[in-house]
């Protein structure tokens, strides 16, 4: 059973398309949802929560349809919104216990879980004081606690580090990682910061202007490329010339020379050329994909296999992706 499955999910607002035919399947772990501000991350989360109806397409969460079983889905998931959402005049314990009851926990259990969850996210004596006096970091923890208090099967976090200083950011990311690994709760974390996603997530979903750019395990995005990077202190142009004369496909980028690895191994050739020209060599390494390439459209795209799917756009189409799926017409139906 996939945790989340969407089919041609589209959301149009008057004059704008927030989501454009997202077809996606996620099986669990910690999923990073990346995209620039306004890319459609929050809209996707709200549709998955059943808070916003899609214009067309469908979405299943925990094997339940968001259009018809929204209430049952919401009992089993937790949601931490990006914006402020805490009343200042009640204490952390009171508020989280109230939210636990709103999730269906009996009053006693709600109180116990509220105290325990606040302790797990790192709120101790402060939890009896009114929330209005909390620091941003403490408020973010309360927001996380209210999403966790009913022990959800799946947690949606929308920009959980929003407004935090670097230290608070580190602590929150460590906490998210811990919730995902130690607590064993599946997480979908939306962020516009690739660095954050890289640090805590196992799987990455990238959207851009409402379209799915990629969905694959994180490792796939940083896989080795078929390019050898040779960096020299100077004389990169002479090195490039020598290698080109020897019949290799090369390009020069500042002080580095990129050698295409297709064909016979070029390592001896590079070593000899550098030695002959007497160049100061800095490093020789096989280049890795970088997460940033996703939004730059430079590198050829990551291949996806099995159940991971990739939306067809120019970059994805250029990649040798056996399972690249077009927006699936089957089962598509208009909802409104």
């Amino acid at each position, binding site marked *: 059973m996939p945790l989340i499955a969407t089919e041609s999910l589209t959301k149009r607002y008057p004059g704008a398309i927030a989501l454009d035919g997202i077809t996606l399947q996620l099986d669990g772990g910690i999923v990073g949802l990346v995209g620039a501000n306004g890319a459609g991350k929050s809209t996707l989360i709200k549709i998955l*929560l059943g*808070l916003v109806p899609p214009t067309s397409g469908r979405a299943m969460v925990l094997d339940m349809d968001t259009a018809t079983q*929204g*209430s049952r889905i*919401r*009992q089993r*998931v937790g*949601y931490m*919104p990006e*914006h*402020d*959402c*805490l*009343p*200042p*005049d*009640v204490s952390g314990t*009171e508020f989280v216990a*109230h*939210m636990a*009851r*709103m*999730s*269906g*926990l*009996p*009053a*006693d*259990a709600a*109180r*116990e*879980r509220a*105290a*325990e969850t606040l*302790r*797990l996210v790192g709120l*101790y004596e402060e939890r009896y004081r009114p929330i209005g006096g909390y620091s941003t970091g403490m408020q973010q923890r309360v927001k996380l606690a*209210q999403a966790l208090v*009913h*022990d959800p099967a799946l947690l949606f976090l929308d920009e959980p580090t929003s407004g935090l200083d670097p230290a608070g950011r580190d602590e929150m990311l460590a906490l998210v990682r811990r*919730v995902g690994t*130690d*607590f*064993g709760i599946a997480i979908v974390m939306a962020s516009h910061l690739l660095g954050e996603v890289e640090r805590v997530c196992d799987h990455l979903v990238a959207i851009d202007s409402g379209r799915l750019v990629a969905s694959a395990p994180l490792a796939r995005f940083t896989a080795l490329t078929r390019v050898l990077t040779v960096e020299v202190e100077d004389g990169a142009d002479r090195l490039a010339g020598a290698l080109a004369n020897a019949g290799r496909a090369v390009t020069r980028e500042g002080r580095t020379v990129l050698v295409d690895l297709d064909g016979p191994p070029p390592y001896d050739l590079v070593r000899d050329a550098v030695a002959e020209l007497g160049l100061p060599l800095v490093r020789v390494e096989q280049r890795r994909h970088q997460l940033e390439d996703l939004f730059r459209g430079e590198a050829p795209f990551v291949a996806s296999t099995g159940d991971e799917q990739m939306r067809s756009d120019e970059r994805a189409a250029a990649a040798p992706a056996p399972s690249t799926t077009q927006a699936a017409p089957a089962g598509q139906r208009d909802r409104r």
Partner: protein
Amino acid sequence: MSADGPGAVSADRIGTSGSIYDLGYQRYRGQRLGRAYAFRSLYLHGLAASFGIGRSTRSKVIPIGLFAIALVPALIELGVTALAGEALRPVRLDNYFSLVGTVMVLFGAAVAPELGSRDQRHHVLSLYFSRALERRDYAVARLAALLTAMLAIALIPEFVLYLGTALVRSDPVSYLSNNADQPGLILGSGIVVALQVTGVALAIASLTPRRAYATGGIVAYWFIADGLGSLIASITPPPTAAASQFTSWTHDAVLLSPSLVGDGAVRWFFGTAPEDALARADLAGWVYVLAALVYAAIGIAVVLRRFHRIAA
């Protein structure tokens, strides 16, 4: 009983090893009571909040004070009756609303923002709507909480007056049996006026996240509409040849005044003759009941629509 503090948890688990408080994450395996329970909890939470229960002392003062004020006419009447007999009866069940209607409105103005505006102000709605509750559940729970609080103000003083009047009589039992229809009338009229005030107050509060605007809006609407209704109703067109047909036109403006509508409705229940502006308007009593219910219905519709549409 519940393991509240870290100390309480650690005491029986850590033995001699010192302060290890982290027991790791515990799965919740207890009951999940679902949507109906969440609705009930929100309703009770809202009802308690209406009287400032679970809030600071300061937020208890106004609602409980207003409730006390609504009781004052009944207590005075009972005191006077006990001391001086029944010669004077300024406070009766059928005019109780005209005496404490303002108190009910002020109660609505104080409490409706707590129920209708506060969660908007602090953006808490998205946390409710991402749980078992539906948007409609939220709106209905808020309406029900305010209605219940309003019924307490509308009904308790009148029942105090009714039962108290019986007790100060020489023969309470025969008084109660002679007036056995009164509890039903108190209940019926109380429900109508409580619905009317609740619908109007929560509708106005739900339209703004700002508490001050909500309170001001409720008070302003009520008293401006009252003033306008009374003013127009007090105009008598100069008598003309055709005047006999049209003189009552302006008098019907009493329907614009929420207080006069409530007063007329209550008098219809108790079957007493209308006075002043209501007498001049000369409308059938049930028209006021209908008007009160229409006001309530419009208010409820506004609340439902607002929480159905509001972004969260």
